[in-house]
């Protein structure tokens, strides 16, 4: 399998008053195309920080992130945004839907930004909302949807533009067990169709759905276990 994303000697420091805290301590990682990888670890181990660096939402203090052979370190903000728009998908812990947009519009907006024809984009958005079981709720605002439904909209938005990789940051953290399982099963199904997924979770039981589980401890990889 080809490598889709690679981190080399990744370091991330945060300032806390006068002190500087090193959250990621020279981390090396490689994700292969089509893999479903979960990252676990205790609170403060650097799971989410690692995800933010890999997903180009943040810039590491040092080290390199190479996406499909492209070193992203020197990319300008606009170029990183463009890369996120076309190649990456995001599912956030708190769903991160725009409250003024309906489910359909939330999914539609990245497609329109990709200069897709509005009619085609709308069809595609409806198709993906239907795929996550929300075909009948497309005109609902996020405030009119349950947590699980909002997270499914978030997944539909993440996959509609057919990204190379989906980053999910504790997507089930705010959901009850039953709903959480539904969400994980959607990820499992996407993975079965060949989608690369990198998911941070603090619930070990969901690691069973993944090909590979990386355990972080104090900013370094403690364990990298394949199924």
């Amino acid at each position: 399998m080809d490598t889709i994303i690679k981190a080399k000697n990744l370091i991330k420091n945060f300032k806390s008053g006068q002190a500087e805290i090193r959250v990621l301590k020279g981390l090396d990682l490689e994700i292969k195309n089509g893999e479903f990888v979960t990252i676990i670890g205790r609170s403060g181990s650097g799971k989410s920080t690692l995800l933010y660096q890999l997903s180009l939402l943040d810039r590491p203090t040092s080290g390199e992130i190479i996406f499909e052979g492209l070193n992203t370190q020197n990319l300008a903000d606009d170029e990183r945004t463009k890369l996120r728009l076309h190649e990456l998908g995001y599912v956030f812990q708190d769903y991160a839907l725009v409250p003024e947009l309906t489910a359909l519009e939330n999914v539609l907006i990245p497609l329109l930004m990709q200069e897709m024809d509005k009619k085609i984009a709308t069809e595609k958005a409806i198709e993906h909302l239907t795929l996550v079981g929300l075909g009948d709720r497309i005109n609902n605002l996020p405030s009119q949807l349950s947590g699980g439904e909002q997270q499914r909209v978030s997944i539909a938005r993440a996959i509609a533009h057919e990204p190379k990789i989906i980053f999910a940051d504790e997507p089930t953290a705010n959901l009850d067990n039953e709903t959480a399982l539904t969400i994980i099963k959607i990820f499992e199904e996407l993975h079965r169709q060949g989608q690369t997924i990198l998911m941070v979770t603090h619930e070990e039981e969901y690691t069973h759905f993944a090909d590979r589980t990386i355990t972080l401890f104090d900013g370094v990889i403690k364990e990298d276990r394949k199924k």
Partner: protein
Amino acid sequence: MFNKIKNKVLDGGLTSFKVGFFLAIRQIRRTSKWTNALVICIMTLTFLNLIVVNGILVGLIEGAVEAIKTHYIGDVFITSLREKNHIEQAPNIIAYAKNIPAIENISTRYLTNGKIEVDYKIQKKRPTDKGEEVATTFAGIDPDAEQKVSNLANLLIEGEYLEPDDYDKVLVGGMLLRKYLDFDSPSFPVLKNVEIGSKIRVTVGGNSREVTVKGIVKSKVDEIDRRVFFTDTQLRNLIGKPDYGPGEISMRITPGTDPLLVKTLLVKEGFDSLATIQTQDEAEPKFIKDMKKTFSMLGTAISSIGLVVAAITIFIVIFINAITRRKFIGILKGIGIRATAIEWAYVFQAIIYAILGTAIGVAIVFGFLKPYIDANPINFPFADGILVATATDTAIRVVVLMIATLIAGYIPVRLITKQNTLDAILNR
């Protein structure tokens, strides 16, 4: 360089514009109605502040100018030469003017100075005691002609207007009476005990006569309010010179005719060697011209301040709007929406709010305020204030307001889109 810019614009520039509009419309539509109403209300008030404050200020002096033109100067104003007491060969001038088709009405005013006394019948304790008296200008008028030119009868606040055959009856200006001018000083005396029907003594030159107050006139024009009006025949008799010439000739011309054309005709006949001939604009008193300049400068200053206030208001509204949506701006950036699209969204919102606020403001100004104030001028002490708001001035202010909105809408959202995407998403 040009191609680089062109490519940048074409490379997603139009898409950012469209996506920005898409977001703006939805954000406005789905924001609470009260919030939208509040923002639009702020925009409307901002616009009104820009138009009305300046308009009233300019209208205040315009009202004074209009009063002078309507009730005193007329459209063309002829006065005696500086070195003369009266207009020479006035009958010739009037005869010629009557043949000019554009001149509709002419009023001839005979002027002289003198004094009026109230308590002249009361025995003075000492011969040196001064009675209740004021110096004033007496104006002899043809009541009908004067009414057609200056609507003098409309300025009556008490009593009745003069009839052409009235004898020993006068109209007294309100500024001569304590009742209508709450101000008295040795250099500016006023009469305390004068009512309709009061007998007063007028003295012109060496001639005195007892007359009855038939009416009291009051306007916002000092030249009228400081005068005592007789019929012209009686004033000329009082002066004792039947050939005494008029001091002022006021002419009313057909609406739409340029007063300058009438003046030119009179000047061509050589009448300017016999009298001073002025259009209404030329005849405006110097203090009015100075006030016009002063108020215009004040108006410009207030408008500029109003514009800065407008820009700051819009900035604050958009900044609060953007800062409360900072997380969602971060999310949009996170999922790949360009910063320019998000910036467009907020600029469009600002522009849409400004357009709606301005449209309501224009409707209020031209649909209600201006017609209402025109019909019911604001009663300022020295003028009937009107609202001056021309279409051109309003259009210029709308354009300036839109430019200010564009800038004031862009800066706050730019400050937020420039921030680190993750910091915005995590609200940290």
